[in-house]
């Protein structure tokens, strides 16, 4: 299948003559670094027909963590309030067989792009060297480009057409904690952690489905510049 390339203009910022200090109200912070998304999976059982030769009596799924080039942009609204949007390249997760399929290795891949807008509260003053913060974001967990495998087909539709699948994308809330540390002039370091509750459903072309709590933990580490 040919993939289509979509261009998303995420942000266009026009700022002129900015000589503000870090994290002053109205300032913008841009950062780049790495973001890791680590699903904490609690898998349900694959719907019938399924195998049952395991202690938990069904097929389950695991989803791997992934780290990508990322960063984000933050708008300092006031002395303590800000809006933050982490940005990253799409995350690629390997889906492994668990439960009755434990030992099968990677049976599928899926990409995710969690688009989140975090309203944040920042502690201490605007000129503080160290500013911890917390936020509560709204995330659109977007899943795309699912890829099956021969192993998935063999165990769900042996000899037949390749088994494909989709994963429901969802809006979720994402609590966040983090901190920024001024490094040199307008350069700063930023680290954050968020954990969300995400329950989604995998739909397979065979008519089967599997519900799973993915509950992603997200870690971000970046170096930024304040405008």
């Amino acid at each position, binding site marked *: 299948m040919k993939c289509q390339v*979509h261009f998303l203009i995420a942000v266009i910022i026009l*700022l002129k003559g900015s000589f503000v200090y870090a994290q002053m109200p109205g300032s913008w912070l841009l950062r780049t670094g790495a973001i890791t998304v680590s699903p904490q999976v609690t898998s349900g059982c694959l719907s019938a027909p*399924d195998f049952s030769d395991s202690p938990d009596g069904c097929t389950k799924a695991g989803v791997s963590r992934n780290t990508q080039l990322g960063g984000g942009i933050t708008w300092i609204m006031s002395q303590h309030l800000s809006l933050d949007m982490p940005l990253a390249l799409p995350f690629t997760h390997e889906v492994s067989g668990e439960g009755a399929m434990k030992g099968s290795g990677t049976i599928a891949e899926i*990409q995710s792009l969690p688009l989140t807008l975090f309203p944040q509260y920042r502690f201490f003053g605007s000129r503080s060297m160290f500013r911890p913060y917390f936020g509560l974001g709204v995330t659109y967990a977007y899943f*795309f*480009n699912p890829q099956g495998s021969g192993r998935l087909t063999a165990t769900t539709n*042996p000899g037949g057409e390749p088994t494909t699948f989709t994963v429901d994308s969802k809006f979720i809330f994402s609590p966040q904690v983090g901190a920024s540390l001024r490094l040199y002039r307008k350069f700063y370091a930023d680290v954050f952690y968020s954990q969300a509750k995400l329950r989604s459903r995998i739909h397979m072309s065979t008519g089967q489905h599997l519900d799973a709590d993915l509950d992603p933990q997200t870690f971000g580490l970046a170096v930024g510049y304040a405008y």
Partner: protein
Amino acid sequence: MLFKLPGITLTVLIALTSCKKPGNGDQSPAVSFSTVIAFGDSLSDAGTYQVGPIKAAGGGRFTVNGVDGEIGTLPVPTYTWAQLVSAAAVGKASCAARSGGFGSPKSNEPATGPTKCRNYAQGGSRVTNPKGIGNPVGVGFTAGPLTEPVVTQIANFGADSGSANFDGTELITVLAGPNDLFGQIETLTLESKAAGAAGFAKSIITQMIAFVTPANRAQAQTAIGQAVQTEAAQAAATPISIITAAIKAATPFLAADAAGKVNPAEIGKTAEAAAKEAGNTYAATTGLQNAVSAMAAVADTLSSYVKDMVNKGARYVVVVNIPDVSQTPMAAKNPSSQPLILAMTTAFNTALEKALAGADGVLFVDAFSENRRQFIDPAHYDLDNVKDVACNLNFPANVLDATKDGSGSAIVCNGNNLINADTSRYLFADNVHPTPYGHKLLAQYVTKAMVLAGWL
């Protein structure tokens, strides 16, 4: 990304590459098999008997026939598990390497080029004995099922390929033993009847001797015994005729007060009870032991064939054990037989697994346990019915119900002679064979084992 500093104009452009439709991913198997070879019986048979009257009746495989469609579509098309495993491994369902039987001469399917057929399994086949189910003659029989045993099927492959050796790129599937089990049941039934007949005769003699004066008992016993034996050997012998012969032989030796006491009906009733007890006792003791031992021996023999293939170069041999025959509709019709059938099945499977434990190139698949899980929780397997049969096995709907007692076979079952119900999720097509959906479930269990072994 495009940054313009200072100024500051900043444009962040993120290119996201996405696919709107789900993709297939890498569908290639872990092992590139050159071909798939099947040895076994009706459970694997790809259509050996799809000739002559069987074909004319819309049959050919021991399941619901004639369900067309690509593999994976609904309703589940007619393929056996071995064919589906072949399709999963090399992208093509296997086809029968031999055809014939039921009045048609045996012929070898074309065995050249990419269309060569390598499914040697035949319905009714046993492991070594050429007298399979429905074949009273053995080698060369074509009036009914060919039933070439597994040992011959392996030799057939050698003949087709020009060598008894394997090059190590073949996937070989083996499932055999159920017909040896049925054969042992036949043997046990015959022996139990013989034990019952002996018990019947013994009871008559004992009862008649009681009416004879003590001085004549030795002589009378000989006379009555001979009379009973002679009459029982007659083709038209009946319990009444045997009792009558016994009374006639005993008459010269009867005590004076025996007149009027000899009651044929009472003697018959007591003798039949004794016969039943003798038959049951034999079945539960000596017969059971013999049958169980025989099945274990068959498993050992089958394992030796498998090991021999490995020694001749085979590197990928899937050996599937016997499903739980004790819970088939056939066994359920006679609940008292179920413990015996279970014991025989378990003996075979245990011996087979033990003999193949640790064998290089052999993947043992425990279909028995999977089958039992299907009986315990049918809904987990999307099965609607695991007790009844999907096919109408009664004459005239099923032309193979020769005895007109519902003993027809799925080999002539198709969409025109199913029972009047939605049978798409039935487990059984006939009294022992699965529906296409049952075959798919078994195939998935085998392919799953292959995935876990790194073979797919």
